[in-house]
């Protein structure tokens, strides 16, 4: 008499039945039908291509994973990406081609502020929702149906410096004097201006303020002036390689600032520089706990690491650029799945009224310009690796801001 437990034969049959059902289920997961086409441009050639190649890889990884999971609404997803050659006027025209000629179903944002603003104009004209991942100037995002994946909040010029100075104030040696040196690149300049306001409000003294032309090659005189000013802390409003160039120039005159912060450095080079010890920067994601317990994070960090190495990238870690890109795709998917449709207006409404679970945690889009919280954290180069040091709740293993 069976006592409620399955006998051997029945158990094997049950397992077989489950396996059969599972395989049938797996077959059902294969997306089928006409593909859903998502269109975007990226700066695959030209000055912006060094960073845009990250976004291309992330998009490819995401779409592959998506199709393995059954696509969107049961249909396979196809990513139509074009090269805007780092030119905003080309980006604008190509987005118009994607919408009016190629007639893609959905749009994804391009790389960098200039191209995003161009694309936004097109999206606005045709009422398409636009999720983007690298817009540096929130105040310019005036379109109702655009959504940022880079969570810098609607007023990053105030909030990011405040986070930074909070971190410094809680460290063993809070700085008293600050040098602000910055590039005049649009998405950097207003942030540095904000930093100056914030430091004044917090009672710190600004001992030097310098701006350089984006494209400047000779950082010697600037390094000299920083050294002369003897600041406790240097805010370097740098994008791309400028931070490295400044560090190199400072090293050549035997000077290293006691504490230094770089706003948007190119991912790899700063880590590789031996003089960037203890340099600070800001990030929305790093491949370490607790970030890796967010949705999709652990698996993505692993896959990205492998694929980036195969593609020959010098830096294979996931940080702000790759994370923002992945988040953008997650947001778009959430919108489609949440509304079970490809209707742009419905997706936009859904995103404005729901929180979306992503690589960065739960995001909301109900603030000014559809921006939510400022999720920029402070990280520091410690022993040749980026370690998140502030705020405390996102640090791991007792990581702390190291002071000189």
């Amino acid at each position, binding site marked *: 008499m069976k006592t409620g437990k399955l006998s051997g034969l029945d158990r094997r049959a049950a397992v077989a039945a489950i396996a059969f059902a599972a395989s049938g289920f797996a077959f059902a997961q294969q997306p089928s039908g006409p593909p859903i086409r998502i269109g975007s441009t*990226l700066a*695959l*050639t030209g000055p912006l291509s060094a960073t845009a190649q990250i976004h*291309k890889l992330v998009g490819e990884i995401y779409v592959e994973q998506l199709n393995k999971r059954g696509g969107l609404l049961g249909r396979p997803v196809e990513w139509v*990406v*074009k*090269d*805007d*050659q780092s*030119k*905003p*006027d*080309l980006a*604008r*025209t*190509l987005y*118009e*081609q994607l*919408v*009016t*000629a190629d*007639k893609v179903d959905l749009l994804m944002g391009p790389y960098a502020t*200039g191209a995003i*603003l*161009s694309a*936004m*104009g097109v999206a606005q*004209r045709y009422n398409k929702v636009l999720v983007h991942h690298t817009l540096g*100037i929130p105040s*310019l995002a*005036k*379109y109702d149906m655009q959504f940022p994946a880079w969570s810098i909040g609607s007023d990053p010029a105030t909030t990011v410096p405040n986070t930074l100075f909070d971190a410094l104030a809680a460290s063993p040696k809070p700085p008293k004097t600050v040098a602000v040196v910055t590039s*005049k*690149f*649009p998405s950097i*300049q*207003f942030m540095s201006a904000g930093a100056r306001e914030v430091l004044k409000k917090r009672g710190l003294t600004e001992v030097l303020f310098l*701006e350089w*032309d*984006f*494209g400047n090659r000779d950082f010697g005189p600037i390094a000299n002036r920083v050294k002369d000013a003897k600041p406790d802390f240097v805010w370097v409003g740098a994008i791309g390689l400028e931070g490295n160039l400044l560090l190199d120039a400072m090293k050549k005159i035997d000077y290293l600032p006691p504490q230094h912060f770089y706003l948007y450095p190119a991912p790899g080079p700063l880590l590789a520089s031996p003089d960037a010890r203890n340099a600070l920067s800001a990030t929305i994601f790093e491949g370490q706990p607790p970030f890796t317990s967010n949705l999709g994070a652990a698996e993505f960090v692993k896959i990205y690491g492998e694929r980036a190495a195969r593609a020959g990238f010098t830096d294979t870690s996931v940080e702000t650029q790759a994370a923002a890109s992945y988040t953008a795709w997650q947001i778009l998917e959430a919108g489609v799945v949440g509304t079970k449709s490809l209707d742009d207006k419905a997706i936009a409404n859904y995103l404005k009224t729901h929180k979306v679970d992503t690589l960065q945690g739960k995001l909301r889009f109900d603030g000014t310009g559809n921006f939510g919280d400022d999720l920029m954290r402070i990280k520091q180069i410690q022993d040749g690796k980026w370690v998140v040091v502030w705020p405390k709740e996102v640090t791991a293993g007792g990581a702390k801001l190291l002071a000189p």
Partner: protein
Amino acid sequence: MSFRRTPWVIVLAGAALAFVPQLGLPAFYDSLLYLMLHWVVLATSWNILSGYSGYFSFGHGAFFGAGIYTSANLMARHDWPFLWTLPAAAGVAAVLGVALGAVVFRVKGVRGELFALLTLAITFVIGTIVVNTPLDGGNGVSLAAVPVPKIGPTPSATFYLLALAAAVATLLIAWAIQVSKFGAGLFAIHDDEDAAEVLGVPTYRYKLVALAISCALAGMAGGIHALFLSYVTAGDVFTITVPLTVVLMSVLGGTRHWAGPAVGAVAITGLLYSFTAADHAVAGKAMIGVILIVAILFMPDGILERVRRLWQRRR
């Protein structure tokens, strides 16, 4: 007698092309054609000074940029309606050009490469001034809130029609100069300026007028382009890209003929667009290089010349 037909051909072609937006093609084609016509204006206006007179200018970007920023600032800061900013843009660019020319053309030794350097330097000077003053200030100028006038069925069509009008005007002016005494004087300056002076050509005045016209047209193209971009940054505008591109287009098409630069502009813009699919992005750049090289090796006087000679051989 044949050359009196030309202006009519240009105007009629323009009128015919004005109906393109009505064809109901996807708006993308309007934008693509806008870009081609935009470069036609820039290349042809460059050629009026540099191709005809031989005073090779590397500074077209400065005048184009002056036009862009004049328009952008008037629209964003002073709420001027878009169309009214265009004559202002043309005017500012022309004044800038004439101011530069008035000083520079007086100096006897400034010919050839020196003029090229001066005009290149002007580009960086104006760019630096723009970036460091409230004209741009480093943050760029956003025109997202400026309404596009309803000249065509869609905004893209509007830009297309404006550029078409500008291109027709530019081509007419370029043709008119070529067949006039003024143009003959410019070509004489190109071939031998001292001899031209001896023959009574008012070289100083002619060069100044050519420069003014060239800059005004570039400024106007800039004004239109400002709204097309809807976000303008100094770093994108005041570079060597625009001057280099117009030189390439003019040389490819042929610099001694009013229509040469237009041919080059259409060819190069078309070429750039054929290679935007992602899979060939990097290889595409190489292909463009190869095609340019082959073109110039086999058509050293420009595409137009080659085509004309083939045409004449057929007759």
